[in-house]
């Protein structure tokens, strides 16, 4: 599985020489409505799930009901004869093993979905169940059966800095506790999958993916065909959050069934498969001993951490998060269990590290009787363009009215306790190679083409905006063409890198197209190309003639301007900072937490579309509310079966669960574009956890903050008051 790592690059770039971002933009930084909104709101947008091809079959995958088993025999003969069945594909052979509930075993393509499902039931598989591990506790026992080759636990190298013994010696107080976060699944509303169609040796695949080019490569490698023979199309896709970067097993199965049946095949997973087999955010556990000096300086941090990313996958996360412990040590263990493998999920690792560190920070602050904001200001790194927390904490405090915060534990009578909490986030972002092609037509319309994809962030709108800005024309003259691997290369949409990869490429390509237009029409305007400028829908010669854009384009005759360009340094940067604060109400009789308000101060470098940027921030925060209060993949401890592989027991908040959210975006135009998909999702859960602690006076060191944990913590603390 391809992972998209956090990218780190220069925090403040050297300004681009030829095509720097405009000093006084017409569009960039304003609120522009998403241009594909009408397609989506009208239901006209066609997602991979919606593709229908002539003669198309529907496929279904048979999956292992066991957490760990050896396949003794597989007999698909009855399925092959079942009504409507056109192809059967055994995916595993006798003797091979399945290592989690939901592991792929075989697949069927039939005329209708119902027939495909019926045929699956006719495939006879005999399994020899093997010992399995259903949770980290089972896997870490000394007497645990060896399920994974090389061991159930993989111990990483120790990360060490400074002098730990000296750090603890300098501490006036020491806090020792264990913290943990849950496994959550991505729950993309459009499940993973695709429609595959062959024409001879050429494959066209409509895929729900975050990476059309990466998926093309994945198909070519797995099917052992040239990349030239594969075309991947993603016009619209229904959410990925880090889990959709390749064809995956179901994509390869779909392509092979389509080949076998000599017909297009539709294979989109169902909700249960989506929970079991398409990734998750790993759990995190941390046993921490930390020290603080009498005057509130953190001195030492010693942590043993572990977590599970499922069957043979890692579970790393950054720790400690943001705050500067001068002396520290940390050892991490990846624990393998018989469950679906983790994948990158919206800011991989960061919400875990943030929650654990920020709760610890509030506990340390209480030991020295300091206000949590003051305590943080004392222990934050020095301010820099990509480290702005020292400015943002006071700004967020002002927004939420932090001065009214009471010390830990709401002293007011009655069962409803109120509290405030805070937390910080950081992320890399940054851009990388994206290529684009621009055509200016003689009628004044413009095509900007690049093989990126819109995963819901508004990429299509950004492409049109930057093109229109650079050419000085209205956006409706621009047709952005994206979501096709036949277009110029662009990377996967992960790591919050899309906007910072695509915007500079479009800026450079549109700039080159503008220059090419100038060169072509300058003689007719009686001016040197260098003396021309574009803006307000006109082309103007310095101190001379000015013509409307469309009239200028007419001068092209019959041949459009057609240029290629690519991402160049100087228009994007890396490193964002943000601070969030939360206000909650906890009912100490029921244990139910309601988040009343979240405030957020967040930067992202140069803001491109202020409207969709804000929507992204809302979305991140709402994801954080879900992570804090509701979401958890529950595996039965005896069978390792997921007990909530649906959307009624796997909880995701609805409108009534959403707090008031106030966002303050800090624009940093001189830094260039960075990206905003991930940062705001990181610190919400930590801010909520600290607000619950402030409200109730008890510390819950485990996500999600479910009523049972709140009540148990209150009980341990001596019952409700």
């Amino acid at each position, binding site marked *: 599985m391809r992972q998209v790592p956090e990218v780190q690059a220069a925090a403040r770039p050297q300004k681009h020489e030829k095509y720097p971002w405009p000093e006084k933009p017409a569009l960039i930084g304003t609120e522009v409505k998403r241009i594909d909104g009408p397609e989506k709101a009208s239901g006209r*947008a066609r997602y991979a799930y919606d593709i229908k091809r002539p003669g198309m079959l529907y496929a279904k995958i048979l999956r292992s009901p066991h957490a760990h088993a050896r396949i003794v025999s597989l007999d698909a003969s009855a399925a092959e004869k079942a009504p409507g069945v056109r192809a059967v594909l055994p995916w595993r052979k006798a003797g091979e093993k399945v290592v989690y509930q939901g592991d792929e075993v075989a697949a069927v393509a039939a005329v*209708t979905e*119902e027939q495909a499902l019926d045929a699956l039931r006719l495939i006879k598989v005999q399994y020899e169940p093997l010992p399995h591990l259903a949770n980290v506790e089972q896997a870490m026992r000394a007497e645990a059966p060896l399920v994974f080759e090389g061991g159930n636990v993989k111990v990483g190298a120790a990360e060490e800095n400074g002098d730990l013994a000296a750090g603890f010696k300098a501490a006036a107080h020491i806090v020792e506790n264990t913290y943990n976060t849950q496994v959550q699944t991505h729950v993309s509303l*459009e499940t993973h999958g695709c429609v595959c169609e062959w024409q001879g040796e050429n494959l066209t695949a409509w895929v729900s993916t975050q990476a059309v080019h990466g998926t093309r490569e994945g198909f070519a490698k797995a099917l052992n065909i040239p990349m030239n023979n594969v075309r991947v199309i993603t016009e619209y896709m229904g959410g990925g959050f880090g889990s959709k970067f390749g064809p995956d097993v179901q994509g390869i199965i779909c392509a092979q069934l389509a080949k076998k049946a000599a017909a297009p095949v539709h294979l989109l997973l169902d909700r249960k498969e989506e929970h079991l087999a398409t990734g998750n955010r790993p759990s995190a556990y941390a046993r921490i001993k930390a020290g603080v000096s009498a005057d509130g300086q953190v001195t030492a941090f010693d942590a043993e951490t572990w977590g599970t990313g499922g069957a043979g996958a890692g579970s790393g996360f950054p720790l400690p998060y943001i705050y500067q412990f001068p002396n520290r040590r940390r050892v991490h263990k990846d624990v393998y269990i018989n469950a679906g493998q983790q994948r990158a999920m919206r800011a991989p690792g960061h919400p875990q590290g943030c929650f654990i560190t920020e709760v610890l920070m509030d506990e340390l602050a209480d030991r020295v009787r300091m206000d949590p904001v003051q305590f943080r200001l004392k222990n934050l790194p020095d301010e820099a363009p990509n480290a702005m927390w020292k400015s943002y904490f006071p700004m967020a405090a002002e927004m939420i009215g932090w001065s009214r915060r009471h010390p830990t534990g709401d002293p007011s009578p009655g069962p409803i306790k109120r509290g405030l909490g805070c937390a910080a986030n950081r992320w890399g972002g940054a851009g990388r190679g994206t290529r684009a092609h621009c055509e200016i037509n003689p009628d004044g319309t413009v095509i900007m083409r690049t093989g990126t994809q819109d995963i*819901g962030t508004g990429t299509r709108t950004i492409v049109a905006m930057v093109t229109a800005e650079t050419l000085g024309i209205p956006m409706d003259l621009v047709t952005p063409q994206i979501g096709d691997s036949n277009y110029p290369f662009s990377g996967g949409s992960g790591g919050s890198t899309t906007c910072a990869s695509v915007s500079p490429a479009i800026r450079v390509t549109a700039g080159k197209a503008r220059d090419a237009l100038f060169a072509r029409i300058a003689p007719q305007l009686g001016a040197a190309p260098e003396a021309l400028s574009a803006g307000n829908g006109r082309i103007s010669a310095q101190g001379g003639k000015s013509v409307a854009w469309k009239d200028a384009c007419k001068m092209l005759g019959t041949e459009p301007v057609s240029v290629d360009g690519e991402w160049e340094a100087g228009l994007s940067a890396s490193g964002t900072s943000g601070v969030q604060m939360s206000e909650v109400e906890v009912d100490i009789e029921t244990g139910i937490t309601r988040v009343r308000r979240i405030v957020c101060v967040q930067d992202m470098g140069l803001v491109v579309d202020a409207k969709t940027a804000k929507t992204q921030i809302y979305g991140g925060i709402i994801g954080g509310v879900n992570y804090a209060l509701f979401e958890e993949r529950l595996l039965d401890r005896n069978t390792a079966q997921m007990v909530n592989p649906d*959307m009624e027991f796997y909880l995701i908040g*609805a409108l009534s669960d959403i707090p008031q959210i106030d966002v303050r975006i800090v624009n940093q135009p001189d830094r260039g574009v960075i990206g905003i998909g991930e940062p705001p999702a990181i610190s919400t859960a930590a801010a909520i956890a600290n607000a619950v602690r402030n409200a109730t006076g008890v510390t819950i060191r485990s996500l999600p903050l479910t009523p049972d944990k709140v009540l148990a913590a209150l009980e341990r603390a001596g019952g409700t008051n």
Partner: protein
Amino acid sequence: MAKNDQGGTDDAGTVSRRDFFKTVGVGSLATSVLTAEDAEAQATAPRAVGPGDVPIRLRINGREHALNVEPRVTLLDAVRNRLDLTGTKRVCDRGSCGACTMIVDGRAIYSCSTLAIEAQGKNIRTIEGLASGTVLHPVQQAFCDTDGLMCGFCTPGFVVATVALLEKIPNPTPEQARKHLDGNICRCGTYVGVLEAALNAKGVARG
């Protein structure tokens, strides 16, 4: 005439009450003590259909469609897979997320949890029936204006649920709007814009 084990026949219209009592047998009469009304209802109940395709007629967005589906096919799948109206989305497929919301006889329903055969004779409205040509329905326009959508996969369900709300309560309070739309789930987290759209949409006729 083939008789099924409920004692009905494959042509419910011709069975007499007397025939009905004959076929249900003494045992079930003694234990269930049917009233005359119950018996009448059972006698006129829809005949058993399937397995295998059966012809049905659906009235969708004012247009009659004749199609053949197995009786187990949901209204959602019939509309998406057989009629190629793919604006309505399948997400949870068990009545908990609202992505498949349609308006049937004026009520918002989960079409993933409604059988297509049960929707016959009813007035079915889907996302495709809202816009007129390229002119968006006021609710669709409001979602675009407030950016109440991101990936867009939950959006048709939310739009249809909002239309159903506003046709019932043209000027809802925020509390009413939240309650009414709580049956729909968005994963990208567009709720802020969604609520704003529901409160801002103007010109929706009372249904």
